[in-house]
């Protein structure tokens, strides 16, 4: 039984039936799923959730699907790592890393939103799924479509690097490279979605797709022992995940899963080379001025985020803030996370770690309160971002005396820039 009663316009409140719709016919505002929270409150409990398999579907009452989920049966429920060595380095008491770099099956948080979107696509009777993407989203849609046996078309800029194309084409979708700039590609994909009637996961299924991002927030609270953290830092690209993490925390209170009345402060992280939300936040404006991205953090380089305004609103409502960091700071933060916690993240994750560091140094985030850093993607997909910044191996002949000589020449081979002695 579905707990979804319909869709509503986030701007004018106009209501719509459950259908593959995404913008309001009246004002063109985005649509949001409406739940029957009273009914959910009666169905759901911590014990029920804990009895289920460790995947994002353990929160199915709060997701917009009917009946049994169709795909993503192993997606979600990624580790919440207590990051003591990184905490020691940043000088904070209680720090966690929510690690979607190991999300199944394609190693990014997109596996959450795509699991929900494709389950919904099957429910609506679509036989073809699609998206426009330069990386993580296309990887995830391609993999989930393969598993579900659906036709899949992905749209990419014609000049996208081979490495990024293979991460999707290995799953067998029809990939279409589009010549032109990003503005042209955006417009064409919107027109194709309108004309062909496929399930374009982040266009006509967007109200359902974005709901999948709530599971990131649900898991943080459950993994903390059914409590909310005091501070959460989340990267912003299109603006899907941050408002949904805020919504997740509120929903858990609403349906009785969390007793804690406090609202976590949520902070947005962007790369300085693409920071339209941070500019508006720092100016105190509601208007997101589009920018042309110029950063190594490609997976979050969205110049005009679809949900940027809702990121601003969620950050302000929570009492949080946000910062942007340079590419240099991002690379350093990727290495810091790898060398303190053994987690290799992509530049989006480096951005989040670097922004957390900056906000702690600014005193915006107190050092003695609980903090969660959101890691949303995997560094093995973007090794070019750190190439040239990491140590190269020493090369020796296969003789013991050569190694002895090398070893003696290395003054004090440090295993990590953060020695164990710095730990509490």
């Amino acid at each position, binding site marked *: 039984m579905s707990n979804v009663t319909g869709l509503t316009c986030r701007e004018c409140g106009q209501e719509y039936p459950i259908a593959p719709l995404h913008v309001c016919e009246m*004002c*063109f505002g985005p649509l949001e799923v409406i739940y029957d929270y009273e009914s959910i409150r009666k169905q759901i409990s911590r014990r029920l959730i804990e009895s289920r398999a460790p995947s994002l579907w353990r929160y199915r009452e709060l997701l917009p699907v009917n009946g049994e989920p169709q795909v993503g049966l192993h997606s979600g429920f990624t580790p919440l790592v207590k990051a003591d060595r990184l905490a020691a380095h940043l000088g904070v008491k209680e720090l966690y890393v929510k690690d979607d770099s190991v999300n199944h099956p394609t190693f990014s948080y997109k596996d959450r939103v795509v699991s929900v979107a494709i389950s919904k696509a099957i429910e609506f009777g679509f036989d073809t799924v699609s998206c426009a993407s330069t990386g993580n989203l296309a990887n995830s849609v391609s993999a989930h479509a393969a598993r579900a046996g659906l036709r899949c078309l992905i749209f990419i800029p014609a000049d996208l690097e081979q490495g990024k194309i293979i991460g999707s084409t290995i799953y067998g979708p029809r990939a279409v490279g589009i010549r032109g700039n990003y*503005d042209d590609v*955006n417009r064409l994909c*919107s027109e194709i979605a309108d004309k062909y009637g496929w399930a374009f996961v982040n266009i006509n299924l967007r109200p359902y797709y974005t709901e999948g991002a709530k599971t990131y927030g649900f898991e943080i609270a459950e993994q903390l022992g059914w409590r909310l953290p005091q501070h959460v830092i989340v990267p912003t690209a*299109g603006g899907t995940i941050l408002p949904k993490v805020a919504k997740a925390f509120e929903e858990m209170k609403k349906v009785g899963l969390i007793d804690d009345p406090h609202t976590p402060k949520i902070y947005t992280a962007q790369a300085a080379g693409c920071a339209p939300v941070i500019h508006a936040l720092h100016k105190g404006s509601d208007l997101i001025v589009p920018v042309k991205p110029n950063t190594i953090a490609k997976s979050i380089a969205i110049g*005009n985020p679809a949900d940027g305004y809702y990121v601003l609103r969620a950050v302000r409502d929570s009492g949080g803030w946000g910062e942007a960091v340079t590419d240099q700071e991002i690379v350093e933060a990727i290495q810091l996370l790898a060398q303190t916690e053994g987690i290799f993240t992509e530049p989006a994750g480096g951005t989040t770690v670097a922004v957390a560091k900056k906000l702690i140094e600014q005193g915006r985030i107190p050092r003695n309160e609980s903090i969660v850093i959101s890691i949303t993607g995997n560094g093995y997909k973007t090794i070019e971002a750190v190439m040239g910044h990491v140590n190269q191996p020493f090369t020796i002949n296969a003789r013991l005396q050569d190694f002895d000589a090398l070893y003696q020449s290395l003054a004090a081979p440090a295993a990590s820039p953060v020695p164990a002695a710095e730990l509490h």
Partner: protein
Amino acid sequence: MKEKFYLTYPPALVKQPIIYLLVKKFDLIPNIRGANVSEEMGLLAVELEGPQETIDSAVVWMRSQGVTVEPIEKNVIE
């Protein structure tokens, strides 16, 4: 043919009658469904109706004037 767009005007264009000029120049039917205009920027949600080629030409012209023209979904590449 009808197509929905999200237009963003930079400060220098906020006082310019872009939609009026668009109609005069291209004979399209604009249907404005949402707007937020300040000194700093103008945002417009608009549907343009007319032949596809004329809409395409109008998009090229608006971009040449400095208007950011995007589908109503804004950036769909993620």
